[in-house]
């Protein structure tokens, strides 16, 4: 894994998200209430809404534009909607966040 250091866990609020700018566009990095982290392309599969601005609950985020719910681990839209926001590998080590900007994949 291509490990790029992007910051510390505490830089992201619980149930929140922050953006990482990359040459392929914005990647949203999420932190759940249980301190798990996930990364998704910051574009909703519906109409491109900025997922990083959504409400994070459980392992999901609700898009701020039309309330599609996206599964953070897979990037897949939760039924009845369908579609996929590409996901990236991200991990925490000693409170430090590492992202692999090349790991983009669609799991839906």
């Amino acid at each position, binding site marked *: 894994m291509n490990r*790029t250091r*992007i*910051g510390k866990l505490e*830089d*992201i*609020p*619980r*149930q*929140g998200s*922050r*953006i*990482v*700018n*990359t*040459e392929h566009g*914005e990647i949203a*990095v999420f932190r759940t*209430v*249980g301190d798990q982290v996930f990364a998704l392309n910051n574009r909703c599969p519906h109409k491109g809404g*900025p997922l990083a*601005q*959504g*409400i*994070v*609950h*459980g392992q*999901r985020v*609700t898009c*701020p*534009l039309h*309330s599609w*719910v996206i599964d953070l681990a897979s990037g897949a839209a939760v039924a009845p909607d369908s579609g996929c926001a590409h996901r990236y590998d991200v991990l925490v080590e000693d409170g430090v*966040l590492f*992202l692999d*900007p090349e790991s983009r994949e669609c799991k839906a």
Partner: protein
Amino acid sequence: MTKTKMRLVVIGNGMAGIRTIEELLKMSADEFDITVFGAEPQPNYNRILLSPVLSGEMKFQDTVLNDWRWYEENHITLHTGKTVTKIDRVRCTVETDDGIVAPYDRLLIATGSNPIMLPVPGINLPGVLGYRSIADVEKMLAAARPGKRAVVIGGGLLGLEAANGLSLRGMDVSVVHLCEWPMERQLDKVGGGLLKEALEKRGLKFYLSRQTDAILGEGAVTGLRFKDGEEIVADLVVMSAGIRPNIALAKSAGIHCERGIVVSDTMQTYDPKIYSVGECVQHRGQTYGLVAPLFEQAKVAANHLARYGRMRYEGSSVSTKLKVTGIDLFSAGDFNPVAGDDELLLQDAARGVYKKLVLRDNKLRGAVMYGDTVDGPWYFQMMRDGTDVSEMREHLLFGQTHLGDSGHGAKAGVMSMPDTAEICGCNGVCKGTIVNAIIDKKLFTLDEVRAHTKASASCGSCTGLVEAILANTLGGDYSAKPSKKPICGCTEYAHQDMYKTIRERSLKTIPEVMQALEWKTTDGCHVCRPALNYYLLAAWPGEYVDDSRSRFINERVHANIQKDGTYSVIPRIWGGVTSPAELRSIAEIAERHQVPTVHITGGQRIGLYGITKENLPKMWAELVEAGFVSGHAYGKSLRTVKTCVGSEWCRFGTQDSTGLGIKVEQMTWGSWTPHKFKIAVSGCPRNCAEATIKDFGVVCVDSGYELHVGGNGGVKVRVTDFLCKVASEAEVLEYCGAFMQLYREDAHYLDRTAPWIERVGLPYIKRHIVDDAEGRAELYARFLKSQQYSQDDPWRERAQGKDAHEYTALATIA
């Protein structure tokens, strides 16, 4: 020791006499030994309803007001079929035709009146009847054979009801009347003409401007001859040419009488032990022939009999409705204009509607309505209150619904009437009394409402209105409809339980709520979290710390996200009033940030569009520097207070709508509400600030401020309901704050005021905001308290660095 009771004797077992007893029993149930004498053999019945009995729409049983049992239960000695023939004022006794003697300490004369039998030849022939009692009705029914001919002499209210009844029994009916049109005492020529036409369509024949010369027949009536010589055939003649107070008995006892038994404002005759009420009475030169005034008299008489000695009878103004099913007619006051009066006319031949209002000195003097009488009680109310109608003049004819323009038709029209509006004219019951009885006593049927309030219990013309009130009040009573839907899949709890549960169980944070109420998910979802955040914020002002993670993006970053992911920035412009200096600073800031679109919003502010998220705090810093605060254009919170220039500039302005709007905005800004909340203040009823489609609207008038609630623009426009009128700016502020607080505590999250009011019903709002001064003051105090903690400008805080992570990227990688 047994206290000897006072002896009260009542002469006349009719409507006024027995109503007095009912009132008396309410006040002091066992002060009196009561004895009642009635010439009629029946117990007390509702004389008004004889017409429906005649027409076959009702049975006599349905008209009985107090049956035999009632007299027994109240220990009243009742002598029916006994006529009192003598009053001995020295011995204080009365005596009947068959020799019963009863002593009295107080005497009440309620002998009513008799039909006037015209002094023409043949008046005593069999087949010539008056129209006064159930006995008369029975005789008419015995004579009524289909195809036979009946002639009714007198085209007044009673005559027409009799004619209609006989016609419904299959008789061939003619009405003979002295004037050019029927009911000339209640209707003008046009209204009378319309009525005549309608009755002719039902088969009645009219002989107008005719005088009866003689009733013909030998042994029984066979016909009628007019003064002009023409003769018509008749098998039955009903005399309905007016009534005459029945004063013979009183007169023979030396009690001062003129046309009627003369009484003072306390309903006492010249003999202070003797009271009198009803149609036999003459008060301040006036006699009455309708029940409403008699019932007022009954109240006063009872009050004095019970020795409260507080009330005075000061005369009544009366309104009339004709009880002919299918014909709507209403009349009140002086409807023949004299020089200097204004006349407002509406005639809609196609709908068969005619209305005439007579104004004098900007006050309603009289009203005649035909075909559409819904607004009758409203006009009548304004007539009696002497309301200045100059401001609503243009719309007056179209009725109250039109003024309030609630757009819900006649039924909702009833609901927009003020609580003081009289619904049941006979019993003087106003709307508020009915609504309160329905709510407090949990009434569900018309009969229950009748029993508890007496509304619609007499002539029945107001039955439609009472039913509409019942339907609206019950329909709007949210406790009656327990439709509880869980907030979302995370919980079984519904919105309506949330605020209360949070307060009662002292739950202070979202995790606490979720744990205590056994949420099914760890941290809820985008539906329940913002709701809980709101409820907690409303429940614990100053204590609960807003959870930005449970806010939708706009409220989290204090700007409106646009479709391209940029944001809009809309600073607050108090009451829509700005200055060159303010405009200059906005212009400079917009230029500096190369704002792509500057737009004047619908809420009288300036919107800057296309701002990137990173730029927000910088722009806010500059705006804050220039003296602006957030306009909360993104929040479920107070948005704008729209105003017009009002009395400061506008030639129509009645009050300083601009200044008041600014005060209102300064009080309310920053408050969080279940959904967005908009206010407007218009300087006069022309309503340039569109106050009647706002959540809270103020329309200034000369005499104060009209408050309107529950309107909105948007997808489904809803016009406000009229709440009440207040006199001062201070009251506007108090009512506004109290209303917002009630909304905050009571509405479901994401309910705007309109659906909330439709659910709980306007009466509910009125009870809390208008009727209950103490409750209102408490709501207002809670609102102000909560405002202490919510008027920190969120832009200033963020310009100073709060929540910086919201506005910057975590990292940028190549």
